[in-house]
């Protein structure tokens, strides 16, 4: 039995929650409305800004007659593959650094420099080395892998020394420590890294598409800019936003699943 006061408290909480969601939607609606009106009444030049109603109609057009969905799918797939490659290779390298303190010490300054280097600068190199298709993956991985290494490695370091001491007291080998403690204890860090990587890899993929590709949302945006079709550019950007929201949602689902399965907090 809950008390009246508590019921009341819950009711207030719920109302507040509803208000937040409602306000969120209103912000979006107000923005779209203002945009539409500004374009209609000539406050801004619709040639430069396009307008929501036009976006909607050209979205319909592009989606059903054009290849918008195919381009979105391509970008999404490239991002997914990029994330998986970065996570795998990044984790393997982080494990190697944990395994050999010597290697990690030797390579530390290089990692720092590579992390600071603007990866876009490598674009032409990837293009020449990997060709127009694979250079996109090159860019995506280049942007996210160093962060992956750093985040996973710092996760390893956060695992308490005494947990490993416990393993050591049973005479555990390094492989056993890795399998029984390091990897399972790092699951929250993997999820956090994944969240960061969704954004970074998408940046890498779009950047790669800007530079070289013949398909994908990045290509559409560049193309739209070149033929001065702001509507195409805006629709593509909207699809990008949608895509990142979906990827982020997937990671959140993954997190909820992992949390239930591995009982971690935070």
């Amino acid at each position, binding site marked *: 039995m809950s008390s009246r006061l508590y019921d009341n408290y819950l009711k207030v909480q719920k109302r507040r929650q509803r208000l937040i969601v409602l306000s969120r939607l209103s912000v979006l609606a107000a923005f779209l409305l203002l945009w539409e009106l500004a374009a209609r009444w000539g406050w801004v030049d619709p040639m430069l800004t396009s307008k929501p109603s036009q976006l909607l109609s050209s979205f319909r057009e592009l989606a059903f007659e054009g290849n918008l969905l195919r381009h979105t799918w391509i970008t999404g797939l490239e991002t997914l593959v990029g994330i998986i490659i970065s996570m795998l290779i990044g984790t393997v390298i982080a494990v190697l650094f944990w395994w050999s303190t010597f290697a990690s010490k030797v390579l530390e300054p290089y990692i720092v420099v590579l992390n600071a280097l603007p990866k876009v600068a490598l674009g032409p190199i990837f293009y020449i080395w990997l060709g127009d298709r694979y250079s996109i993956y090159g860019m995506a991985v280049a942007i996210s892998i160093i962060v992956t290494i750093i985040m996973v490695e710092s996760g390893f370091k956060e695992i*308490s020394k*005494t*947990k490993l*001491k*416990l*393993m*050591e*007291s*049973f*005479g*555990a080998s390094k492989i*056993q420590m890795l399998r*029984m*403690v390091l990897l*399972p*204890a790092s*699951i929250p860090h993997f999820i956090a890294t994944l969240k960061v990587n969704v954004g970074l890899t998408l940046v890498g993929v779009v950047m790669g598409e800007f530079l070289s590709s013949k398909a994908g949302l990045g290509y559409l945006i560049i193309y739209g800019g070149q033929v001065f079709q702001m509507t195409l550019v805006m629709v593509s950007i909207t699809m990008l936003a949608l895509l990142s929201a979906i990827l982020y949602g997937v990671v959140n689902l993954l997190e909820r699943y992992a949390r239930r399965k*591995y*009982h*971690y*907090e935070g």
Partner: protein
Amino acid sequence: MAQIELKDVGLSYFTPKQETEALRGINLSIRHGEFVSIVGPSGCGKSTLLSLVSGMLKPTKGNVLIDGEEVTGTSRKVGYMLQHDHLFEWRNVFNNLLVGAEIRKMDLNRAKRKASELLERYGLGEFAQHGPSQLSGGMRQRVALIRTLVAEPDILLLDEPFSALDYQTRLKLSDEVFHIIKEQGKTALLVTHDLSEAISMADRVMVMSKRPSTISSMHDIRFEEGGGLSPWKKREAGLYNRYFNAIWKELEGHVVPII
């Protein structure tokens, strides 16, 4: 024959900044089934001593022997219990108990039988499938002890195992752990900074000096009421205060011999 023997053991830590001589000239001999408490100022090298017995550290001088054989690395004969339970959150209680057995590649079916038996016996049977975070601090530490016991060591090393617990829990738990260890017939080395815990649980209390640490004295704890008293009862026994005061004064630096 002594089960644990330290012969003129010394240990120094080396770090880029300095050399720390933790232990010097330690001679110690512990019989099978004996319970020895170690007290001493913090940072004097108590944990270091346990690490030496466990084989995780090698002495820079002298020898450590278990059952007459020189210790060269971690051994199946030794189980270590640390201040924090370090139960793995990603395993339930039952699977946590199997960690040692898994690492040592022991017969898993046997380990599982042993784990459920001990869980039942020590009142945690219904929590086997729970996550560690659902247990209280005292229960977690009991699980940690059972995890150590499942690996079937002859010798238990306990490094301030109760110090993270509240007073009431630690009184109760020290009583329980004492009975568990005696019942299982294990040799035990307990490090604690709680004098009453040290006296009420042990057959002998070893007092260590400041660093570089040596054994400053060894107290046989015997009560007129006879052996087999529980720690709880010992705290009420006549001689308890005598031991307590003697060791207390000694720790303060005034060495008063006990008559």
